């Protein structure tokens, strides 16, 4: 026997949570583009998508967010802090790769300095992930040591039932348990069989790649130039990555009043590292692509003992010139050391 949530009850669950003052978010499509949006009922949810176009990250680390408002007087500067409100949120229908990305960025945003903008939202959100029963050609979680039913970063894991009429429910954290207890009357007990998980083939040997990346000899390998030759230097792979977290701080307004914002930024952009003097440590697109791969699979894991890639495959899926992490790591796996 296991705890079950039937699809037919989902609408009532959402209503219950909303009555309790929670906001409910889930995958939905607007203007042809899928992403996580607040929903009022189950009908607005797009739970059949392999993945949303934009990531879960956006709900925690928006592409632009006000940090401080300022007003400058003669003798003092008044500021207003825009730390996000603690409105509690249920995020329903997350894919395990996206949820795993949350844990990756937790490490970064808590590295000695605790980023309240990230953690207020983390602390007030409950993530309901749904294990994957279908995937596409770009999925590669298994290559990263994850799986279609990974639990990392999730508070509740739902496993679709074979009959397609609901999910087997498993609370993973206390937050998850609490969120379930408020809908306990809508949950059932039963022995319904779960649907088989999707089979995501392993596309590269991660450990071999990491060894190659860690070898200082390879830093200036011709490989980097060849693999990134067609890169046009846009930021779509970074902006659609569930873990990429680089940002810019920009003031808007004037020198009397305005807002200081935290905006997404990308290591793909040529100005990202440009010094005022004109010197640019990463002056070429190949150096920037190397940084992206190195950061994900070498530096980040050295620091935080986790790869900052969860295998969602969006970088390749959305790349205007059909590049991405998969191709690069596949190529590295086959390189002779």
């Amino acid at each position, binding site marked *: 026997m296991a705890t079950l949530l039937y699809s037919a009850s989902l609408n009532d669950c959402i209503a219950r949570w909303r009555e309790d003052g929670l906001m409910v978010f889930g995958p939905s499509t607007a203007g042809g583009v899928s992403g996580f949006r607040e929903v009022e009922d189950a009908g607005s949810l797009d739970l059949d998508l392999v993945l949303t176009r934009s990531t879960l990250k956006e709900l925690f680390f928006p592409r632009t967010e006000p940090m401080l408002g300022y007003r400058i007087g003669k003798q003092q500067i008044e500021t207003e802090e*825009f730390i996000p409100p603690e409105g509690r949120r249920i995020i329903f229908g997350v894919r395990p790769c996206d949820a795993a990305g949350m844990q990756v960025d937790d490490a970064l945003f808590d590295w000695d300095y605790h980023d309240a903008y990230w953690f207020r939202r983390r602390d007030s959100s409950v993530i309901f992930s749904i294990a994957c029963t279908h995937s596409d050609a770009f999925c590669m979680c298994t290559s990263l040591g994850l799986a279609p039913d990974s639990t990392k970063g999730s508070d509740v894991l739902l496993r679709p039932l074979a009959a397609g009429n609901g999910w087997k429910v498993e609370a993973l954290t206390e937050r998850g348990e609490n969120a379930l207890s408020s809908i306990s009357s809508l949950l059932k007990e039963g022995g319904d069989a779960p649907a088989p998980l999707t089979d995501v083939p392993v596309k590269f040997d991660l450990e071999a790649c990491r060894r190659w990346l860690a070898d200082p000899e390879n830093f200036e390998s011709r490989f980097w130039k060849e693999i990134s030759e067609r890169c046009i230097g846009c930021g779509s792979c970074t902006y659609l990555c569930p873990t990429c977290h680089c940002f810019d701080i920009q003031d808007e307004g004037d020198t009397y*009043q305005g*807002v200081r914002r935290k905006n997404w930024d990308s290591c793909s952009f040529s100005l990202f590292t440009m010094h005022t003097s004109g010197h640019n440590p990463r002056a070429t697109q190949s150096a920037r692509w190397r940084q992206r791969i190195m950061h994900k699979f070498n530096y980040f894991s050295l620091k935080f003992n986790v790869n900052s890639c969860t295998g969602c495959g969006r970088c390749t899926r959305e790349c205007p010139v059909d590049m991405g992490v998969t191709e690069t790591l596949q190529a590295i796996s086959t390189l002779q050391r």
Partner: protein
Amino acid sequence: MSEVFEPKIVAFVCTYCTYAGADLAGTSRLKYPSNVRIVRLPCTGRISPMFILKALQKGADGVLVSGCHPGDCHFDHGNYHARRRWTVFNSLLQFAGVPEERVKFSWISAAEGIKFAELIREITEDIRKIGPFEEYHKLIAETGSAAPL
């Protein structure tokens, strides 16, 4: 009682013709609404569409761009270049949904103080009728920065 809406209008003008025309309107004691803030530039050829976007970003309800009549440019052909840019930018703004009343273009010479005063009056009244540029102001408000105009 609701406050009377006073349109905020920014005028980008060339110094040789329209600014002189505005000056003439002033010295001739012609009355025109004080809703317009004049930004003086050397030539209409210097007036980039970015200026118009900046004015709107800072909360303008309307923008006027004005310079010498064709053939009268102090720099010979600055206004001919400007005219092409206006043609293109004007149609872009309209396609983007900026009502045509909000962004206006004109030729006003140094001798046309009356035309200047009348045009300002006309534009101010037109915008007063359609009200504040609420659609744009909503976007400004979302940014959290004030529209200081």
